[in-house]
């Protein structure tokens, strides 16, 4: 058991509170038409931030799904910059960042799991230290990619932490329609690897489980499947209306277990947290996200950038479309939606 120190817990909470504040700003930016669809982090703060603090940003990799970036501050400010580029639709938001070990978001469910296993195996082959940690949801655990990748990770003893954030929903599909199994962690048995089930709203428990899995992987013991149970406290995405399907009672009950409130009251009891500190942390987090947004908006974006990242050289069709778009002028509104070669 590696309990995080009180200082570590406080550092985790700083990141969680910052993420919660930034999530509110992000939602408003979307509602103001300034950024695209996004998936709010609400309810996942403890599992993401505590995981980041149990890892070593200098040697370990994180492969997120799509809810995590705001709570990955510990890996560097570039994570937020990258995320805001992604949110405004800039292709650079989907690049592998040069300086931080955090992969871009994955929308295509579960595809990040084979990536993480391959990356971990590659690190072993190159005798590089470190582990990879991959986040995915309860819904993603039903994908073939999950099963194939976890099976291979077990065979290869790849140094990977498979972190399933079970938030009880996959859009509007509740967990009991996702699986007949009692626990997602039980799947580990079938792949010959350890599986643990933890309370993802308990930052200390998350830190402990991730630390243990990391030590195992670094020692050559291979992967661990961690099922962290939380509750999605917000909408699936900005395009979703959860009041149509999330029972209000269940949500109310989940709110009494809000990971941010839990750690705030724990640290306040220890005299390590107060409202004044929280207000400062929130204000600083809002400044950071506003600045990251400004930087993203200031990043040059060629009108035809949308064509740049599919093929090394344009296919004839893409070349024609690129020319049509550029001929239509800066806003490109005058082109007809369907050209003849569609």
């Amino acid at each position: 058991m590696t309990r995080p120190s009180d200082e570590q817990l406080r550092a985790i909470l700083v990141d969680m509170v910052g993420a919660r504040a930034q999530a509110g700003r992000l939602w408003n930016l979307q509602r103001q038409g300034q950024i695209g669809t996004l998936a709010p982090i609400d309810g996942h703060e403890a599992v993401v931030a505590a995981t980041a603090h149990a890892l070593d940003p200098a040697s370990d990799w994180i492969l997120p799904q799509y809810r995590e970036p705001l709570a990955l501050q510990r890996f560097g400010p570039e994570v937020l910059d990258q995320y805001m580029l992604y949110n405004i639709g800039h292709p650079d938001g989907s690049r592998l960042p040069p300086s931080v070990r955090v992969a871009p978001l994955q929308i295509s469910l579960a595809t990040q799991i084979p990536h993480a296993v391959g990356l971990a195996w590659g690190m072993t082959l190159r005798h590089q230290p470190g582990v990879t940690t991959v986040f995915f949801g309860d819904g993603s655990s039903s994908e073939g990619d999950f099963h194939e990748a976890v099976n291979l990770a077990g065979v290869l003893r790849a140094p990977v932490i498979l972190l399933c954030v079970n938030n009880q929903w996959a859009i509007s599909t509740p967990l009991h329609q996702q699986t007949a199994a009692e626990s997602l962690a039980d799947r580990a048995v079938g792949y010959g690897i350890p599986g643990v089930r933890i309370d993802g709203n308990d930052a200390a428990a998350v830190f402990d489980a991730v630390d243990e899995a990391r030590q195992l992987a670094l020692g050559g013991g291979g992967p661990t499947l961690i099922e962290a149970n939380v509750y999605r406290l917000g909408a699936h995405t900005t395009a979703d209306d959860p009041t149509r399907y999330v029972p209000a009672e269940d949500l109310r009950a989940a709110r009494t277990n809000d990971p941010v409130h839990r750690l705030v009251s724990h640290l306040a009891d220890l005299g390590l947290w107060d409202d004044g500190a929280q207000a400062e942390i929130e204000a600083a987090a809002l400044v950071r996200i506003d600045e990251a947004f400004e930087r993203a908006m200031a990043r040059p974006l060629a009108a035809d950038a949308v064509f740049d990242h599919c093929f090394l050289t344009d296919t004839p069709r893409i070349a024609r479309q690129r020319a049509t778009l550029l001929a239509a002028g800066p806003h490109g509104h005058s082109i007809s939606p369907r050209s003849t070669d569609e």
Partner: protein
Amino acid sequence: MAFIFRLPDIGEGLEEAEIVEWFVAIGDEVLRDQPLVEVLTDKASSELPSPVAGTVLLLGADEGTRLQVGEVLIEIDDGSTAPKVASEPLSTQTSPTKSQPPTPLPEVAPLTARPKAAPATRRLALDLGVDLTTMIGTGPGGRITVNDVHAAAPASTSTGGLSNDDSTASDGLGQAAAGRHALRGIRGVVARNMTQAWTEIPHIHTMDEVDASLLIDFRDRIRDMDRSGATRVSVLVVAAVATARALRRFPVVNGHVDGHPGDAMVIPEHIHLGIATATKRGLVVPVVHHADTLDLFTMADRISSVVGAARSDDLSAADLSGATFTITNYGSLGGRFATPIIPPGQGAILGLGAVAERPVAIDGEVVARPTLPMVLGADHRLIDGDLAEAFRRAVADDLAEPLHLLIGS
């Protein structure tokens, strides 16, 4: 200088939104991120927060009207010197949910194509025996809506006779395998609400039968009228109109007790009627808002639309919230008297039994008359027997002589 905020596409490929409510007026000072307006799209209702701080110069549309994405929503003087515009469409491609290609729908769906209707709507059509392949809907781009399906459905509920004609029986009644089953979904909600109501509210019930001869005659004559919505007028609909009238006369019956065991009584400003509806998934209570402002035909339309939506699982959160008084038409399942439970947050409930021919004594003679049994359940913390009976009788008098509905209450 005016900051122009154009209606953004806040969903994925939305074309327009309805202005539900403005939270600000021209001349108001607003802060950044302060909610400005509630809009309703085909997906959900959402609050749009202000992109800037400043003074409101112009509102782009009235409440209840629709705006196209890209049209001016609001102009705000933010003190800057250069004109700025938010919500020029950005080329965002992020899409964690099912994203649909933004190809515009053809104006009218070709009849040979697969019908444009949501899965729930198709299911409803199947249940009601409506053929969608020959229909063009009233929704955007010819999309078929739940209301279209109900409108096209054979009027199976209007068979006349003495029934209350709102059958609410569901499939698989009373079926479950042996063993322990968690109470989930609607069953779980019903369980929690009923426990709270039964343990917190001291119920009293007053009941009687109304001579329904004139009521049945009134209903049947309305149904024969050549007027849209006429066939939807039922005993329940007339009772809903009469109830809304009586609630206006006795606002306390529209109220409820707040706090446990009871700190205050709350009298709502408006009258919103919950209509208890049995569905395949369990009991659902959709709400007809501002019921006291609706005439008979509008009431008929609204009840049939919310009940239809409840049965096809197509209700929005708003359709389910805000009831101040509930009517349960338990008689549609048969049964004469019942003791309905008051939903938490309300003070009374009206139950309607099955209309049937029963012996009635008139001037010393026993004659057969159609009668409507009715029950009022009331929260005794709020309502004593005298008020309960006065209220029940106010409704009963309108039902016994529907001409009362023409006379101001």
